[in-house]
């Protein structure tokens, strides 16, 4: 896939709250689906998600039955602040990804920097290119 040219004007998409039709909500409050990039390198599959407002301590990355769930909590601003104008909603983030068995599930790494989550999913050894050794007879 070709990436958009650099230096283009940034035209964002609005955050979409997750509707209850996407499954019954199990937590109180509004949740948004974060915008994600998913790409492959030779070694890994990488998921990058925008989760502004989530502190590293409020992030949860769970893996259960090959389903990777990413959840982040966002604190409401100071209650003394009176809202004057609103363009974005404040709420948590959640999104699920189903992993294939081609992922080495024990080697998954996640980091959160400046509101951007990066999850690195190493490909299983069976999929990596390898050298075949020829044994002498």
């Amino acid at each position, binding site marked *: 896939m070709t990436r958009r040219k650099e230096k283009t004007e940034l035209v964002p998409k609005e955050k979409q709250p997750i509707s209850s039709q996407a499954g019954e909500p199990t937590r109180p409050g509004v949740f948004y689906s974060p915008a994600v*990039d998913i790409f492959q390198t030779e070694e890994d599959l990488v998921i990058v998600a925008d989760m502004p407002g989530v502190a590293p301590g409020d992030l949860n990355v769970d893996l259960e039955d090959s389903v990777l769930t990413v959840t982040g909590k966002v604190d409401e601003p100071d209650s003394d602040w009176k809202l004057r104008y609103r363009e974005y909603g404040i709420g948590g983030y959640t999104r699920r990804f189903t992993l294939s068995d081609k992922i080495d599930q024990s080697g998954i790494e996640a980091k959160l920097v400046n509101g951007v989550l990066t999850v690195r999913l190493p490909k299983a050894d069976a999929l990596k290119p390898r050298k075949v050794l020829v044994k002498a007879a």
Partner: protein
Amino acid sequence: MTVLRTHRFNDIWQEMNRWQQHMGDLFGERDYSKNACGVFPPINTYDNGESYIVLAEIPGISLDDLDITATATQLTLKGERSPNNDIADRSYHRAERDHGSFNRTIDLGQPIDPDKIDARFENGVLEIVLPRAAHALPRQITVKN
């Protein structure tokens, strides 16, 4: 000169939407998210009596790429969100996150003190505290007998 506002009644749905918006305005339920359409970064504005607070969601930007300027009544956010090109050889399955430059000016309505602005960037959210100008703060007036 008289300014006439005419609404041609050519689409019933358009007309209904207009009324709905009017009613929303009356009851304070206006859908502000419409304001944000196509503008980056999305902002929320608060008032704590002494200052205006502007929050902007700009995840993944580096502070070197962000430029904040202010006058007594306007705040300008300029910057660029660059794609992460540290790994050259990658094939995308999904690309929802946008990259590019932005330049946005916010009218504050009331004068602020541009020398006392405080800004911090935490977890991808930019918080700018703009203290109101001393002469613009509400003050108590005592009535003399």
